[in-house]
C-alpha cells in the first residue's frame, strides 16, 4: 500500500482514454460559436460539423445518416429505445404489452424495462441465459411465437458488459422481424472490438456511446431505422428527428465521430491485439490462482467473447477486498455494479448465469483497451496471487465473525 505505481489500468469497459484525434476534433470546436439549430452563419457552421459527424458515424456503423439520433450518452439512448419503442408500439396497438429483455442487460436497459413493468402496464419477460451468459434463441422464439401480437419490443445487448459474452442478436432480430416486432440492442461495449453493422444486424434500434470508443463522455447515439417510430423521452425543441430534444453538443459530437471512425476502422487489428493480451491475462491469472474461475464464454473467438474482457470469480474472496488490494498496488479493475451508496451488490448477470451469491460477490472484471500493454498484464499476473491469498484470509474473517 505504500507504492501506488506503476499505474495499471484494466477497466477500459468502464471508460477508455480519449484518442488524440478525438481530443483534437473536440477541442477545435470548443472555442467556436454556434447553436446547430440556428439559421445564421454561426449556426450553419455548427450544423455542418454535426452533420459531418452524423455521416461519419453512420458510415462506420452501416447505417444511414438520418438513422443517427444523438443523445447524451448510452443510458439516454437505451431509455429512449426501450420507452420510446414501447409507447409507440402500444399507441399503435394497445395489445402490445409484452417487453422481452434479456436478464443480463445493463442497468440502463434493465431498469428502464422494469420501470415500464411497474408503472406503465408492461408485461415484462426476462429472457433466460445459459451458464455462459448467452440468451437461448429457442426460448426467445417460443416466447415471441406464443403470442406475437402482444409483443411491443425485444431488447438484447450485442455483448454483455460484465462477462463479455457475445449475444445472438442477429438470430433474435430475425425472429422478431418475422412478426414485425422491433428489436433494440445495446452495442455500447461492442463497437470498436467486434464488427458492428447496423443494417446487416437486422435490429431496429442500436445504442452506441462515445467514451467506450475513445471519444468523450456524455455523448452517444441511438441508431434507429428511418421507418421506426419512437415516442420522445425528452421533450423540447425537437432537434433530433423530433424524437430527442436539447441543444446539440457540437464539440462532443465531433470528438465522438472522430473516435468512432478510428475505432471501427481499426477494429479487426484491435480485436486481434486485445484478444492476444486477454488470453495472456487469463493464462497468468490461472497460473497464479489455479482455482480462479473464468466467467463467460471460454471460446476466445470474436463470435463468442469480447476480445478485451476477462472476468473471474475467486472462491472465498470478497470482490471489494480484491479491488482494494489491487488498487493499493496501482492496479485498477472493477467488481461490477455498485449502488448509489457505493455498496457492492452481487451482479445480476452472474446470478442470471446461475452463480450463487457468494461466488458473484467474489468476482472481478479486467477489461483491456487501446492503451493496454503486455507490461500491464504482467503486473496483474505478478500481483494477483498474493492479493487473492490476502483477500481470502479477510473473507474468512468476515464469514466467521469477530475473533476478539
Amino acid at each position, binding site marked *: 500500500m505504500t507504492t501506488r505505481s506503476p499505474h495499471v489500468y484494466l477497466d477500459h469497459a468502464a471508460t477508455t482514454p480519449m484518442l488524440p484525434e478525438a481530443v483534437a476534433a473536440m477541442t477545435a470546436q470548443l472555442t467556436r460559436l454556434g447553436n446547430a439549430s440556428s439559421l445564421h452563419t454561426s449556426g450553419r457552421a455548427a450544423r455542418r460539423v454535426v452533420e459531418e459527424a452524423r455521416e461519419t458515424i453512420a458510415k462506420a456503423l452501416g447505417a444511414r445518416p438520418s438513422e443517427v439520433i444523438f443523445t447524451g450518452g448510452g443510458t439516454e439512448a437505451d431509455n429512449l429505445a426501450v420507452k420510446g419503442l414501447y409507447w409507440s408500439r402500444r399507441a399503435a396497438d394497445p395489445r402490445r404489452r409484452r417487453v422481452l429483455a434479456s436478464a443480463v442487460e445493463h442497468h440502463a436497459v434493465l431498469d428502464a424495462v422494469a420501470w415500464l413493468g411497474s408503472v406503465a402496464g408492461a408485461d415484462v419477460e426476462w429472457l433466460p441465459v445459459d451458464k455462459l451468459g448467452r440468451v437461448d434463441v429457442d426460448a426467445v422464439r417460443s416466447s415471441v411465437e406464443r403470442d406475437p401480437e402482444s409483443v411491443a419490443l425485444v431488447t438484447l445487448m450485442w455483448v454483455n458488459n460484465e462477462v463479455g459474452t457475445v449475444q445472438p442478436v442477429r438470430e433474435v432480430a430475425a425472429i422478431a422481424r418475422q412478426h414485425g416486432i422491433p428489436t433494440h440492442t445495446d452495442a455500447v461495449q461492442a463497437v470498436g472490438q467486434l464488427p458492428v453493422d447496423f443494417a446487416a444486424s437486422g435490429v431496429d434500434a442500436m445504442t452506441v456511446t462515445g467514451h467506450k470508443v475513445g471519444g468523450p463522455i456524455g455523448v452517444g447515439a441511438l441508431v434507429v431505422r428511418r421507418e421506426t417510430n419512437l415516442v420522445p423521452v425528452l421533450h423540447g425543441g425537437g432537434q433530433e428527428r423530433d424524437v430527442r430534444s436539447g441543444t446539440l453538443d457540437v464539440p462532443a459530437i465531433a470528438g465522438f465521430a472522430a473516435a468512432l471512425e478510428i475505432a471501427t476502422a481499426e477494429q479487426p487489428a484491435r480485436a486481434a491485439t486485445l484478444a492476444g493480451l486477454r488470453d495472456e491475462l487469463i493464462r497468468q491469472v490461472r497460473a497464479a490462482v489455479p482455482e480462479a474461475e473464468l466467467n463467460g464464454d471460454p471460446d476466445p473467438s470474436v463470435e463468442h467473447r469480447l476480445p478485451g474482457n476477462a472476468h473471474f470469480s475467486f472462491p472465498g474472496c470478497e470482490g471489494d*477486498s480484491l*479491488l482494494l*488490494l489491487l488498487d493499493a498496488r496501482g492496479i485498477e479493475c472493477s467488481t461490477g455494479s455498485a449502488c*448509489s451508496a457505493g455498496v457492492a451488490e452481487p451482479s445480476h448477470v452472474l446470478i442470471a448465469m446461475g452463480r450463487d451469491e457468494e461466488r458473484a460477490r467474489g468476482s472481478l472484471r479486467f477489461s483491456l483497451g487501446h492503451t493496454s500493454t503486455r507490461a500491464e498484464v504482467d503486473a496483474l499476473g505478478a500481483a494477483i496471487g498474493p492479493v487473492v491469498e*490476502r483477500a481470502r*484470509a*479477510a473473507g474468512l474473517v468476515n464469514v466467521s*465473525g*469477530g*475473533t476478539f
Partner: protein
Amino acid sequence: MRVLAAMSGGVDSAVAAARAVAAGHDVTGVHLALSRNPLSYRSGARGCCTQEDARDARRAADVLGIPFYVWDLAERFHADVVEDFVQEYSSGRTPNPCLRCNEKIKFAAVLDRALALGFDAVCTGHYARLVDGPHGRELHRSVDAEKDQSYVLGVLTAQQLAHAMFPLGGSRKTEVRAEAAERGLAVADKPDSHDICFVADGDTAGFLARELGDQPGNVVDEDGTVLGQHDASYAFTVGQRRGLRIGRPAADGKPRYVLSIEPVSRTITVGPREHLAVSVIEGAKPRWCGEPLDGTQECRAQIRAHGETLAARAWLDGDTLRVELAEPAVGVAPGQAVVLYDGTRVIGSATIAGTLAAATA
C-alpha cells in the same frame, strides 16, 4: 503504518483521517454502510449512514487524496447492534448501542477485516486518548470533557486498543472544527450527530413500539398493589418518573419512580426516589482495557454516557464485577455499562446486571 480510517461522513472522523495522513501514515478511508435500507436511517446531517453521509465521507477522502471504499456491514450491524438493542429493551434493560457498535462492529468486524487485509490499525474520530503506559497501551479520557467518549470505548480489550488510533483525543471539538475548515473539508460546519443512528426520527419509544408491539402490564408499588397499567414495559427505564400514568397519588404525596422492570410478567415496580438508591452494582461480562483488576481497587465508576463519576471500590467475584459505591446512587439502569476509571485512565467495564439497594433508614 497502514491505517484504515473509518469515515462516517462527519467532521470528527474526517479530521481524524486527515491527522493520520499528516502523521505520515498510509491511510485508506472506509465508510461503513450500516443500514439495510440506506434511506431509512436519518436523513441530512445528523445521521451516520445515509447516502448523503457516504457522499460527505467520500468527498473528505478525495480532499485528503486517499483511497475510499464503502463496506457493507448492514447485516452484522443489524444482528449485533439493532437486534441486541431491541432484545435488551424487551428484557427490561436499557442498552447502549454505541458501545455495542464499538465492541462488535468497529473494533471487531472492521478491525478483523482490516488486519487481514494488511492494515495495522483502525482510526476513528472518537474523543479519547491512547497512552503508552508502563503496562502497555492505556485508554484515557479526552481532554475535552464535554466530548469525551471513553465511556463507549470502555468495552475494548487491550488487543483491540493495540490496533486502534484516536487522533482527536488531545483536542477540543472547537479546534477540530477549525482544523477541518483549514484543511478545506466541507464537513467543517456539519452538525454533530446525536442519539441513535438507526432510530430514524429520534423517537426511540416509537421505534421499539414498531419492533415489539404492545407489551402491556401492571404498574405496582413495592407491596405489589396495582396502581395502574402500561402499554409497554420497554418504554421505561429504571429511575424514570414521567409517563407512569398512575391515577392515584401516593400516600406521602411524593412522586413515584421506576424501581425495577420485570420482563416476563411485564410488571413495573415504582416507589419513592430514595428507594432508587443503589450501593452495590453487579456487572456481567467484564472487559479490561489493560490489566484486569487485581484484588479490590479504589476507583471512580461511571454508570451512563456523559454521567458523573462516583467514588467506588471494585473487585472481581468470579465472572461478576462488584462495584461498591461510596455514596448511594440513583438511576442505575440494568443494561447500561459501568465503566471504571483510575483518574483519566479507563480500567475496564461491565454490563450492569443487578443492583443492591442502599439500606434505607
